[in-house]
Protein backbone atom coordinates (compact mmCIF):
# COMPACT_ATOMS: atom_id res chain seq x y z
CA UNK A 1 0.00 0.00 0.00
CA UNK A 2 1.48 3.27 -1.08
CA UNK A 3 1.39 5.99 1.56
CA UNK A 4 -0.44 3.62 3.91
CA UNK A 5 0.49 5.57 6.99
CA UNK A 6 -0.79 8.84 5.57
CA UNK A 7 -4.05 7.28 4.40
CA UNK A 8 -4.77 5.60 7.70
CA UNK A 9 -3.97 8.72 9.70
CA UNK A 10 -6.16 10.66 7.26
CA UNK A 11 -9.03 8.24 7.78
CA UNK A 12 -8.63 8.42 11.55
CA UNK A 13 -8.56 12.21 11.51
CA UNK A 14 -11.58 12.16 9.20
CA UNK A 15 -13.52 9.88 11.51
CA UNK A 16 -12.67 12.01 14.53
CA UNK A 17 -13.84 15.11 12.68
CA UNK A 18 -17.03 13.37 11.53
CA UNK A 19 -17.77 12.40 15.10
CA UNK A 20 -17.31 16.02 16.19
CA UNK A 21 -20.94 16.55 17.22
CA UNK A 22 -20.82 13.43 19.39
CA UNK A 23 -17.63 14.10 21.37
CA UNK A 24 -18.00 17.85 21.47
CA UNK A 25 -21.43 17.79 23.11
CA UNK A 26 -20.77 14.66 25.19
CA UNK A 27 -22.21 14.93 28.65
CA UNK A 28 -23.87 18.26 27.94
CA UNK A 29 -27.38 17.13 26.94
CA UNK A 30 -29.69 20.08 26.42
CA UNK A 31 -31.90 20.77 29.43
CA UNK A 32 -35.23 19.02 29.56
CA UNK A 33 -38.03 21.27 28.38
CA UNK A 34 -39.69 22.89 31.34
CA UNK A 35 -43.33 23.54 30.79
CA UNK A 36 -44.94 26.08 33.09
CA UNK A 37 -48.46 25.01 33.86
CA UNK A 38 -51.16 27.59 34.47
CA UNK A 39 -51.56 28.66 38.08
CA UNK A 40 -55.22 29.60 38.12
CA UNK A 41 -56.78 26.87 36.02
CA UNK A 42 -56.08 23.41 37.41
CA UNK A 43 -57.74 21.29 34.77
CA UNK A 44 -57.23 21.13 31.04
CA UNK A 45 -60.08 20.15 28.73
CA UNK A 46 -58.96 16.54 29.01
CA UNK A 47 -56.61 14.66 31.38
CA UNK A 48 -52.94 15.58 31.21
CA UNK A 49 -51.79 12.27 29.73
CA UNK A 50 -54.32 12.52 26.92
CA UNK A 51 -53.38 16.12 26.20
CA UNK A 52 -49.70 15.25 26.14
CA UNK A 53 -50.10 12.65 23.41
CA UNK A 54 -53.21 13.81 21.59
CA UNK A 55 -53.39 17.61 21.75
CA UNK A 56 -52.70 17.89 18.05
CA UNK A 57 -55.57 15.60 17.09
CA UNK A 58 -57.81 17.43 19.53
CA UNK A 59 -56.89 20.80 18.02
CA UNK A 60 -57.52 19.40 14.55
CA UNK A 61 -60.96 18.27 15.65
CA UNK A 62 -61.68 21.66 17.18
CA UNK A 63 -60.62 23.34 13.97
CA UNK A 64 -62.86 21.22 11.75
CA UNK A 65 -65.81 21.42 14.11
CA UNK A 66 -65.73 25.20 14.44
CA UNK A 67 -64.80 26.18 10.93
CA UNK A 68 -66.71 23.62 8.95
CA UNK A 69 -69.58 22.42 11.13
CA UNK A 70 -70.20 25.59 13.22
CA UNK A 71 -70.13 23.45 16.33
CA UNK A 72 -68.14 25.62 18.68
CA UNK A 73 -68.88 24.14 22.08
CA UNK A 74 -66.70 21.27 23.24
CA UNK A 75 -67.85 19.03 26.04
CA UNK A 76 -65.05 17.22 27.82
CA UNK A 77 -65.45 13.63 28.97
CA UNK A 78 -66.49 14.79 32.44
CA UNK A 79 -69.03 17.25 31.11
CA UNK A 80 -67.31 20.65 31.24
CA UNK A 81 -68.11 23.00 28.37
CA UNK A 82 -65.53 24.93 26.41
CA UNK A 83 -65.51 27.33 23.50
CA UNK A 84 -63.35 25.59 20.91
CA UNK A 85 -60.79 28.29 20.29
CA UNK A 86 -57.02 28.12 20.31
CA UNK A 87 -56.59 31.85 20.69
CA UNK A 88 -59.35 32.49 23.18
CA UNK A 89 -59.61 29.29 25.20
CA UNK A 90 -56.25 27.48 25.24
CA UNK A 91 -54.19 30.63 25.30
CA UNK A 92 -56.52 32.69 27.49
CA UNK A 93 -55.10 34.68 30.39
CA UNK A 94 -56.07 32.05 32.98
CA UNK A 95 -54.59 29.15 31.05
CA UNK A 96 -51.57 29.02 28.78
CA UNK A 97 -51.07 32.76 28.77
CA UNK A 98 -47.47 32.55 27.62
CA UNK A 99 -46.67 30.66 24.46
CA UNK A 100 -42.93 30.78 25.14
CA UNK A 101 -43.37 29.06 28.49
CA UNK A 102 -45.72 26.38 27.25
CA UNK A 103 -46.00 25.49 23.56
CA UNK A 104 -42.52 26.58 22.58
CA UNK A 105 -40.82 24.60 25.33
CA UNK A 106 -41.48 21.14 23.88
CA UNK A 107 -41.87 22.23 20.28
CA UNK A 108 -38.44 23.85 20.24
CA UNK A 109 -36.91 20.91 22.08
CA UNK A 110 -38.21 18.40 19.57
CA UNK A 111 -37.83 20.69 16.59
CA UNK A 112 -41.53 20.71 15.77
CA UNK A 113 -42.74 23.80 13.95
CA UNK A 114 -46.53 23.80 13.79
CA UNK A 115 -47.92 26.53 11.57
CA UNK A 116 -50.70 27.56 13.98
CA UNK A 117 -49.02 30.87 14.71
CA UNK A 118 -48.62 31.89 11.09
CA UNK A 119 -52.20 33.08 11.36
CA UNK A 120 -53.42 32.69 14.92
CA UNK A 121 -52.38 35.41 17.29
CA UNK A 122 -50.28 34.35 20.23
CA UNK A 123 -50.96 36.04 23.55
CA UNK A 124 -48.98 39.16 24.27
CA UNK A 125 -46.08 38.66 26.59
CA UNK A 126 -44.08 41.33 28.38
CA UNK A 127 -40.92 41.96 26.41
CA UNK A 128 -38.47 41.95 29.37
CA UNK A 129 -36.70 38.78 28.30
CA UNK A 130 -36.02 39.77 24.72
CA UNK A 131 -34.70 43.15 25.86
CA UNK A 132 -32.25 41.51 28.22
CA UNK A 133 -30.82 39.54 25.36
CA UNK A 134 -30.12 42.56 23.19
Amino acid at each position, binding site marked *: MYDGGKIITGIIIGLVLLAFPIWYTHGTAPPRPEVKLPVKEKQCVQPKAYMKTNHMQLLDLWRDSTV*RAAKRIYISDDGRKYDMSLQNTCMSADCHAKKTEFCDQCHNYTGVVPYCWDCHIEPKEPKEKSEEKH
Partner: protein
Amino acid sequence: MGVNRRKFLKIAGISTLGVVAKPAADALAVEWLDKRLGGFTIPETLLHLFHRPTGFTPGEALTAKRWAMVVNVKNCPEGCKACREVCHKVHNVPDIENPRHEIKWIWHGEYKHVFPGQKHEHIEEALKKIPFVVLCNHCQNPACVRVCPTKATFKRKHDGIVLMDMHRCIGCRFCMAACPFGARSFNWIIPWPRERAGTMPRFRKDKEPPNPEFPTRVKGVVEKCNFCAERLAKGQIPACVETCREVTKKKGMKPALVFGDLEAPDSEVRQLLRSHYTLRRKPELGTNPNVYYIV
Protein backbone atom coordinates in the same frame (compact mmCIF):
# COMPACT_ATOMS: atom_id res chain seq x y z
CA MET B 1 -52.95 -13.68 1.75
CA GLY B 2 -53.21 -11.24 -1.12
CA VAL B 3 -56.39 -9.82 -2.53
CA ASN B 4 -58.00 -12.12 -5.03
CA ARG B 5 -60.14 -10.96 -7.90
CA ARG B 6 -63.39 -11.58 -6.07
CA LYS B 7 -62.33 -9.60 -3.02
CA PHE B 8 -60.92 -6.79 -5.14
CA LEU B 9 -64.18 -6.43 -7.06
CA LYS B 10 -66.11 -6.34 -3.78
CA ILE B 11 -63.94 -3.59 -2.33
CA ALA B 12 -64.02 -1.62 -5.58
CA GLY B 13 -67.79 -1.93 -5.73
CA ILE B 14 -68.31 -0.75 -2.17
CA SER B 15 -65.88 2.15 -2.64
CA THR B 16 -67.66 3.27 -5.81
CA LEU B 17 -70.97 3.16 -3.96
CA GLY B 18 -69.47 5.27 -1.22
CA VAL B 19 -68.25 7.94 -3.62
CA VAL B 20 -71.34 7.96 -5.79
CA ALA B 21 -74.03 7.77 -3.12
CA LYS B 22 -73.75 11.39 -1.99
CA PRO B 23 -74.14 13.04 -5.42
CA ALA B 24 -76.85 10.49 -6.23
CA ALA B 25 -78.63 11.39 -2.99
CA ASP B 26 -78.28 15.07 -3.88
CA ALA B 27 -79.70 14.49 -7.34
CA LEU B 28 -82.58 12.44 -6.05
CA ALA B 29 -82.99 14.70 -3.02
CA VAL B 30 -82.98 11.80 -0.58
CA GLU B 31 -83.53 13.84 2.53
CA TRP B 32 -82.95 11.23 5.17
CA LEU B 33 -79.51 10.42 3.82
CA ASP B 34 -78.71 14.08 3.54
CA LYS B 35 -79.71 14.62 7.14
CA ARG B 36 -77.67 11.69 8.37
CA LEU B 37 -74.60 12.99 6.58
CA GLY B 38 -75.13 16.52 7.87
CA GLY B 39 -73.58 18.19 4.86
CA PHE B 40 -70.56 15.92 4.61
CA THR B 41 -69.71 13.47 1.82
CA ILE B 42 -69.68 9.75 2.48
CA PRO B 43 -65.86 9.45 2.49
CA GLU B 44 -65.82 12.35 4.96
CA THR B 45 -68.43 10.62 7.09
CA LEU B 46 -66.37 7.44 7.11
CA LEU B 47 -63.37 9.49 8.18
CA HIS B 48 -65.43 10.90 11.02
CA LEU B 49 -65.75 7.42 12.49
CA PHE B 50 -62.15 7.95 13.55
CA HIS B 51 -61.89 11.71 13.51
CA ARG B 52 -65.23 13.01 14.63
CA PRO B 53 -66.13 16.71 14.64
CA THR B 54 -67.45 16.62 18.16
CA GLY B 55 -69.13 19.60 19.62
CA PHE B 56 -72.34 21.46 19.84
CA THR B 57 -73.74 24.62 18.39
CA PRO B 58 -73.69 27.28 21.11
CA GLY B 59 -77.11 28.01 22.53
CA GLU B 60 -76.88 31.76 22.08
CA ALA B 61 -76.07 31.44 18.35
CA LEU B 62 -78.28 33.20 15.84
CA THR B 63 -79.61 30.66 13.39
CA ALA B 64 -81.47 30.87 10.12
CA LYS B 65 -82.27 28.69 7.18
CA ARG B 66 -80.74 31.15 4.74
CA TRP B 67 -79.03 34.35 5.78
CA ALA B 68 -79.48 37.29 3.47
CA MET B 69 -78.81 41.01 3.37
CA VAL B 70 -80.71 43.93 1.95
CA VAL B 71 -78.76 47.08 1.04
CA ASN B 72 -80.90 50.18 0.91
CA VAL B 73 -78.41 52.31 -0.99
CA LYS B 74 -80.19 55.63 -0.59
CA ASN B 75 -79.98 55.34 3.20
CA CYS B 76 -76.21 55.18 3.03
CA PRO B 77 -75.00 58.42 4.69
CA GLU B 78 -72.78 60.53 2.46
CA GLY B 79 -69.10 59.74 2.76
CA CYS B 80 -69.74 57.08 5.43
CA LYS B 81 -67.35 54.16 5.35
CA ALA B 82 -68.16 52.85 8.83
CA CYS B 83 -69.21 49.39 7.66
CA ARG B 84 -65.97 48.83 5.84
CA GLU B 85 -63.85 50.15 8.66
CA VAL B 86 -65.45 48.03 11.36
CA CYS B 87 -65.49 44.88 9.21
CA HIS B 88 -61.85 45.18 8.31
CA LYS B 89 -61.00 46.00 11.91
CA VAL B 90 -62.71 42.99 13.50
CA HIS B 91 -61.52 40.57 10.85
CA ASN B 92 -57.93 41.78 10.78
CA VAL B 93 -58.07 42.76 7.12
CA PRO B 94 -54.95 44.73 6.17
CA ASP B 95 -55.30 48.12 4.45
CA ILE B 96 -53.11 47.64 1.42
CA GLU B 97 -53.13 50.65 -0.88
CA ASN B 98 -51.83 48.98 -4.02
CA PRO B 99 -55.00 47.92 -5.85
CA ARG B 100 -53.24 44.83 -7.17
CA HIS B 101 -52.59 43.56 -3.66
CA GLU B 102 -55.62 45.00 -1.93
CA ILE B 103 -57.74 42.83 0.39
CA LYS B 104 -61.45 43.60 0.44
CA TRP B 105 -64.25 42.03 2.45
CA ILE B 106 -66.71 44.85 1.99
CA TRP B 107 -66.27 47.96 -0.10
CA HIS B 108 -68.11 50.71 -1.94
CA GLY B 109 -68.52 50.59 -5.70
CA GLU B 110 -70.17 52.74 -8.32
CA TYR B 111 -73.46 51.77 -9.93
CA LYS B 112 -71.83 51.15 -13.30
CA HIS B 113 -69.40 48.68 -11.74
CA VAL B 114 -71.83 47.00 -9.40
CA PHE B 115 -74.56 46.55 -12.00
CA PRO B 116 -72.62 46.52 -15.28
CA GLY B 117 -75.50 44.90 -17.12
CA GLN B 118 -77.93 47.65 -16.10
CA LYS B 119 -75.86 50.74 -16.85
CA HIS B 120 -76.65 53.20 -19.59
CA GLU B 121 -75.91 56.84 -20.29
CA HIS B 122 -79.10 58.25 -18.92
CA ILE B 123 -79.53 56.63 -15.50
CA GLU B 124 -80.88 58.59 -12.58
CA GLU B 125 -78.39 61.31 -11.60
CA ALA B 126 -78.49 60.34 -7.93
CA LEU B 127 -77.48 56.74 -8.66
CA LYS B 128 -74.32 57.88 -10.41
CA LYS B 129 -73.01 59.39 -7.18
CA ILE B 130 -74.25 56.96 -4.56
CA PRO B 131 -71.71 54.46 -3.27
CA PHE B 132 -73.03 50.91 -3.44
CA VAL B 133 -71.99 48.65 -0.60
CA VAL B 134 -70.56 45.48 -2.10
CA LEU B 135 -69.61 42.26 -0.37
CA CYS B 136 -69.72 38.52 -0.93
CA ASN B 137 -73.21 37.61 -2.10
CA HIS B 138 -73.25 34.28 -0.29
CA CYS B 139 -74.84 32.79 -3.38
CA GLN B 140 -77.19 29.89 -3.09
CA ASN B 141 -75.39 28.30 -6.00
CA PRO B 142 -71.83 29.51 -5.46
CA ALA B 143 -69.44 29.14 -8.38
CA CYS B 144 -66.43 29.47 -6.07
CA VAL B 145 -67.45 26.41 -4.07
CA ARG B 146 -67.90 24.38 -7.19
CA VAL B 147 -64.40 25.02 -8.47
CA CYS B 148 -62.47 24.76 -5.21
CA PRO B 149 -60.24 21.66 -5.51
CA THR B 150 -59.74 21.23 -1.76
CA LYS B 151 -63.18 22.21 -0.47
CA ALA B 152 -61.49 25.05 1.35
CA THR B 153 -64.45 27.17 0.40
CA PHE B 154 -67.80 25.62 1.13
CA LYS B 155 -71.43 26.51 1.66
CA ARG B 156 -72.81 25.81 5.10
CA LYS B 157 -75.80 23.58 4.57
CA HIS B 158 -77.75 24.79 7.56
CA ASP B 159 -77.72 28.54 6.88
CA GLY B 160 -76.33 29.06 3.38
CA ILE B 161 -73.25 31.05 4.38
CA VAL B 162 -70.32 30.58 2.00
CA LEU B 163 -67.20 30.23 4.10
CA MET B 164 -63.46 29.92 3.70
CA ASP B 165 -61.43 27.35 5.60
CA MET B 166 -58.04 29.02 5.44
CA HIS B 167 -56.39 25.86 6.75
CA ARG B 168 -57.26 24.08 3.54
CA CYS B 169 -56.73 26.87 1.01
CA ILE B 170 -53.84 26.10 -1.32
CA GLY B 171 -53.97 29.49 -3.02
CA CYS B 172 -54.85 28.25 -6.50
CA ARG B 173 -57.26 31.18 -7.02
CA PHE B 174 -59.77 29.15 -9.05
CA CYS B 175 -62.46 30.63 -6.81
CA MET B 176 -61.37 34.14 -7.70
CA ALA B 177 -61.68 33.33 -11.37
CA ALA B 178 -65.06 31.73 -10.77
CA CYS B 179 -66.59 34.46 -8.60
CA PRO B 180 -68.40 36.88 -10.93
CA PHE B 181 -68.51 39.57 -8.23
CA GLY B 182 -64.83 40.03 -7.44
CA ALA B 183 -65.66 39.33 -3.83
CA ARG B 184 -62.48 37.41 -3.17
CA SER B 185 -59.00 38.71 -2.50
CA PHE B 186 -55.69 36.91 -2.60
CA ASN B 187 -52.91 37.59 -0.12
CA TRP B 188 -50.08 38.46 -2.46
CA ILE B 189 -47.94 39.81 0.34
CA ILE B 190 -47.60 38.83 3.99
CA PRO B 191 -50.57 40.65 5.50
CA TRP B 192 -49.40 40.49 9.13
CA PRO B 193 -45.64 40.19 9.25
CA ARG B 194 -44.46 38.23 12.30
CA GLU B 195 -41.50 39.88 13.90
CA ARG B 196 -39.60 39.72 17.14
CA ALA B 197 -42.07 42.04 18.78
CA GLY B 198 -45.07 39.96 17.69
CA THR B 199 -47.65 40.45 14.99
CA MET B 200 -46.96 43.73 13.22
CA PRO B 201 -49.79 45.95 12.07
CA ARG B 202 -47.69 47.11 9.15
CA PHE B 203 -50.61 47.34 6.78
CA ARG B 204 -53.20 48.71 9.18
CA LYS B 205 -53.77 52.43 8.86
CA ASP B 206 -54.63 52.67 12.56
CA LYS B 207 -51.35 50.89 13.40
CA GLU B 208 -53.16 48.92 16.07
CA PRO B 209 -52.44 45.27 16.84
CA PRO B 210 -54.81 42.66 15.43
CA ASN B 211 -58.13 41.83 17.04
CA PRO B 212 -57.18 38.93 19.32
CA GLU B 213 -60.62 37.33 18.92
CA PHE B 214 -60.07 36.59 15.23
CA PRO B 215 -57.09 35.05 13.46
CA THR B 216 -54.98 36.75 10.83
CA ARG B 217 -53.94 35.21 7.52
CA VAL B 218 -50.77 34.20 5.75
CA LYS B 219 -49.49 35.03 2.33
CA GLY B 220 -50.96 32.71 -0.30
CA VAL B 221 -54.54 32.26 0.83
CA VAL B 222 -57.75 33.69 -0.56
CA GLU B 223 -60.11 35.48 1.79
CA LYS B 224 -63.54 37.08 1.69
CA CYS B 225 -66.54 38.17 3.74
CA ASN B 226 -67.82 35.42 6.06
CA PHE B 227 -71.16 37.08 6.96
CA CYS B 228 -69.63 37.31 10.45
CA ALA B 229 -70.09 33.59 11.08
CA GLU B 230 -67.98 33.96 14.25
CA ARG B 231 -70.28 36.72 15.56
CA LEU B 232 -73.48 34.86 14.66
CA ALA B 233 -72.19 31.99 16.80
CA LYS B 234 -72.09 34.39 19.74
CA GLY B 235 -75.56 35.72 19.04
CA GLN B 236 -74.42 38.97 17.44
CA ILE B 237 -75.47 40.34 14.06
CA PRO B 238 -72.75 41.09 11.50
CA ALA B 239 -70.45 43.95 12.46
CA CYS B 240 -71.24 46.02 9.36
CA VAL B 241 -74.99 45.81 9.97
CA GLU B 242 -74.62 46.66 13.65
CA THR B 243 -72.45 49.69 12.92
CA CYS B 244 -74.70 50.84 10.10
CA ARG B 245 -77.65 50.74 12.48
CA GLU B 246 -75.84 52.89 15.03
CA VAL B 247 -74.53 55.41 12.52
CA THR B 248 -77.82 55.86 10.70
CA LYS B 249 -79.75 56.04 13.97
CA LYS B 250 -77.62 58.98 15.09
CA LYS B 251 -78.45 60.76 11.86
CA GLY B 252 -82.13 59.92 12.19
CA MET B 253 -82.14 57.72 9.11
CA LYS B 254 -83.20 54.16 8.50
CA PRO B 255 -80.34 51.65 8.29
CA ALA B 256 -78.79 51.01 4.89
CA LEU B 257 -77.84 47.43 5.75
CA VAL B 258 -80.43 44.95 6.93
CA PHE B 259 -79.66 41.33 7.76
CA GLY B 260 -82.01 38.43 8.32
CA ASP B 261 -83.42 35.06 7.44
CA LEU B 262 -84.73 34.86 3.90
CA GLU B 263 -86.75 31.75 4.70
CA ALA B 264 -88.62 33.34 7.61
CA PRO B 265 -91.65 35.08 6.13
CA ASP B 266 -91.77 37.75 8.84
CA SER B 267 -88.09 38.63 8.94
CA GLU B 268 -87.01 42.21 8.37
CA VAL B 269 -85.40 41.23 5.09
CA ARG B 270 -88.55 39.63 3.77
CA GLN B 271 -90.64 42.62 4.76
CA LEU B 272 -88.31 44.93 2.85
CA LEU B 273 -88.30 42.64 -0.16
CA ARG B 274 -92.08 42.52 -0.14
CA SER B 275 -92.47 46.27 -0.10
CA HIS B 276 -89.63 47.39 -2.38
CA TYR B 277 -88.36 46.72 -5.85
CA THR B 278 -84.96 45.08 -5.46
CA LEU B 279 -82.01 44.23 -7.66
CA ARG B 280 -79.41 41.53 -7.34
CA ARG B 281 -75.98 41.55 -8.92
CA LYS B 282 -75.73 39.59 -12.18
CA PRO B 283 -78.73 37.35 -11.54
CA GLU B 284 -78.50 36.10 -15.13
CA LEU B 285 -75.48 34.01 -14.16
CA GLY B 286 -77.66 31.81 -12.00
CA THR B 287 -75.59 31.94 -8.84
CA ASN B 288 -78.65 33.15 -6.94
CA PRO B 289 -77.09 35.88 -4.76
CA ASN B 290 -78.40 36.51 -1.26
CA VAL B 291 -77.58 40.22 -1.17
CA TYR B 292 -80.39 42.44 -2.43
CA TYR B 293 -80.25 46.11 -3.40
CA ILE B 294 -83.02 48.68 -3.05
CA VAL B 295 -82.10 51.53 -5.38
